[in-house]
């Protein structure tokens, strides 16, 4: 699917889209980023690169949800935590697929790089974000809209979970962090070589890898961490820095500059009509048809049988003088 063929006259994201068409649900914006969540930013950039018009919906009270980012398309929803995530959902619903048209060898390379981004780089990124020294930035990313008390509790809970996942304990923090940063550094070197001085990683056109890498680079370059080892690592590769900065201008339209014409959003195809379009009554019937008259009669009889039994038991309870003491016997009747 080629997505640069047209530029709709809209100038702001989602302004022309029909409500309910395509909605991206993300965590709230901060630090000049449209969403300050390292998981949501790549999805946002993916849709921007695909020049698809979408509405943004911010949810600020789910810092521990793995479902974000999610994409809503009519009644259908693609959650990040589900098979393939948002990108796979967009492909399945035939909204956009940036990776279509890549050759097999390119696809292999793309998958390898994505795997590297999602493991080595993502781990190092999570470590840096959740380390104690960057507490203030982390809170701005995840807990900005939560009331006092919940912030502290959730922050603690999440931090423990992240550090446990990364295998970082107070004793091994130094060794483990060095390893995490080394792997991330290696990944940056590999990406830097792959990118060279091209505009995109493959064929001068955006792919899901571009969205993933850009999201990561922009997050670490823009968020003013107290300790930002990764920013230092990134700045060792000038082509990555240039790549991030130029695309940030074109895709996010910073400093008053408009979004690049090639990425002006266009309205996605309308979603399939919801299932309710057909009258509900007609739908109920086919589901019920397989039940034969006999079945229905049997079920009815079974129901009445149960009721009769219940009534019989009840009659017994009432008439056989079965006295239930109830609340009266709160253990005070021993003389």
């Amino acid at each position, binding site marked *: 699917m080629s997505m640069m063929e047209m530029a709709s006259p809209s100038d702001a994201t989602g302004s022309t889209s029909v409500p309910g068409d395509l909605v991206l649900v993300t965590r709230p914006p901060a630090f000049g980023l449209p969403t300050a969540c390292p998981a949501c930013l790549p999805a946002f950039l993916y849709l921007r690169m695909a020049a698809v018009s979408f509405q943004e919906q911010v*949810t600020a009270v789910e810092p521990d949800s793995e479902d974000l980012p999610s994409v809503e398309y009519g009644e*259908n929803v693609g*959650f990040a935590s589900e098979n393939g995530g948002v990108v796979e959902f967009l492909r399945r619903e035939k909204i956009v697929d940036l990776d279509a048209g890549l050759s097999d060898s390119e696809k292999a390379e793309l998958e390898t790089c994505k795997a590297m981004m999602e493991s080595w780089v993502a781990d190092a990124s999570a470590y840096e974000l959740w380390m104690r020294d960057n507490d203030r930035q982390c809170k701005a990313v995840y807990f900005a809209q939560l009331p006092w*008390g*919940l912030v502290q509790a959730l922050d603690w809970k999440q931090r423990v979970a992240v550090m446990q996942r990364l295998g970082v304990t107070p004793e091994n923090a130094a060794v483990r962090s060095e390893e995490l940063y080394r792997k991330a550094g290696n990944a940056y070197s590999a990406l830097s070589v792959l990118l060279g001085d091209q505009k995109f990683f493959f064929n001068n056109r955006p792919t899901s890898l571009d969205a993933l890498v850009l999201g990561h680079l922009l997050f670490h370059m823009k968020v003013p961490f107290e300790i930002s080892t990764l920013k230092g690592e990134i700045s060792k590769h000038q082509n990555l820095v240039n790549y991030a900065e130029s695309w940030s201008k074109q895709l996010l339209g910073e400093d008053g500059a408009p979004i690049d014409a090639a990425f002006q959003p266009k309205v996605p195809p309308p979603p399939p009509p919801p*299932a309710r379009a057909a009258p509900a009554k007609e739908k109920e019937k086919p*589901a019920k048809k397989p039940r034969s008259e006999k079945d229905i009669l049997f079920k009815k009889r079974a129901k009445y049988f149960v009721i009769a039994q219940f009534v019989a038991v*009840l009659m017994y309870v009432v008439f056989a003088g079965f006295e*239930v003491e*109830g609340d009266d016997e709160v253990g005070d009747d021993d003389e």
Partner: protein
Amino acid sequence: MDPREEDEEVEVEMEEDEEEVERGEESSVNLIKSMTQKLATEPVTVRVHDIVIKGNTKTKESVIEAQLRELREVTTMQELLQESVRANARLRALGIFDKCVITLDAGPEELSGTANVIVEVEEVKRPFSGDLGVFSKPETKAWTLEGTVKYKNLGGHAETLDATGCYGLDTTSELSAGVIYPRFKGLPASLSTRVTLLTQDWQRYSSYRERLSGFSVGLVGDNQHDISYNLTWRDLKDPSRCASKSVRRQLGHSLLSAVKYTYKRDDRDSAFRPRRGVAFISTTQIAGLGPDSRLLRFARQEVEVRLAIPLGFANAALNLGVAGGVILPWGPGYKTKPTPISDRFYMGGHSSLLGELKGPSALLGFRTRGVGPSELRRPPVGPTEKGDGEVVAVPKKDTLGGDLAVSGFADFSFDLPMRFFKEYGIHAHTFVCAGNLLPLTGEGASAWSLRNFFSGFRVSSGAGIVIPTKLFRLEVNYCYLLRYQDSDRVKRGVQISLNSPQ
């Protein structure tokens, strides 16, 4: 008249809720006769001079005194006797005494017309108690297993420490612990504090599961008033990932800091089968107390009035009830902010029309949470990809609840003409009930008018048999729907509802 003239010791023993008037020494039948006659015919003035409490080892004297406060205000012997009976009942209700005897003695000789009250108690030897039971929750249509362990009077303040665990298959689990101080600081109310951990599953009706961890403190009045503060951390999740859009927007964490005040009055002659009297309940809740603007902010009010009118034949009575409720957000952006889904009003289900007084919720002929605004759930990922027309499954919906709810009913109950039924209180009734709810906030709140609201009322009628037992009220009803909407989940025909009163 001076009771001292008789040189008489009156002992009121209420072991079996009876009064025994005994004479200490050699008593003459005449003296008793004249005494009782005097008490029966004219007021005998008396004043309580002193209250002596005996037998309490652990329990603080002030706790017992708080239960005896009314005794100090009596002016006649008759009142003193009545109040003694009441005080004894109250002391027993504390559940910390095995035995409790109130003796009325003559006051000091130099003060005529006075009496001394001697309270002898015996504290329980075993302060532990436990309960285990299976309960039915008509509103969620679920059965739960509940267990409670209580420890009474640990600090001598007649307080009850209790820990409760409750488990319902796939639906609810609750752990809570609390302390209750009866007649706290001399107030006619008990102080109750409670820590609760509750998981409630609404996936079947509205695709979400809520986890509540909270703390509440309340003053529960002896009769009509009840005020409480609640601080609860709410976490709404959708583990099935099939929630509709409106429910998805509600997911996440929130903090509730709210004060709730309930005023309740029930002058009806019976909770099971009211035939005369009026009952009224009003509950006001203000949430968002605290300096943090990110707390849940809303105000919720519900009112219910019930009236029972005797008809004068066949034990017949007409019960009328009207209930209404409204919830609105406040603070900046209150016009667009949706109200929390857990605090909205829902209707339908198996609760009886004459059950607990709890605002607009009962509407027979509809399934649990079966009435009102609803939204299509997210379609399952699988079948949409297959054929176009061959989608077999009926699209499921989430009930969203309403911000404004009004319901009413009329119930006519009468005795059946058979002695056998009369003996056991089994009677018949016919009823008509109506109700509607609608959203005022959020996305679902399109323009609404009062006229639309009233024309959208659901109406059902029916008749049935009521079997009152000691523990619950059982109704077997046949429901006939007069008005409903396509989106409602209805339940025609025979319905069984089980209700515990109040």
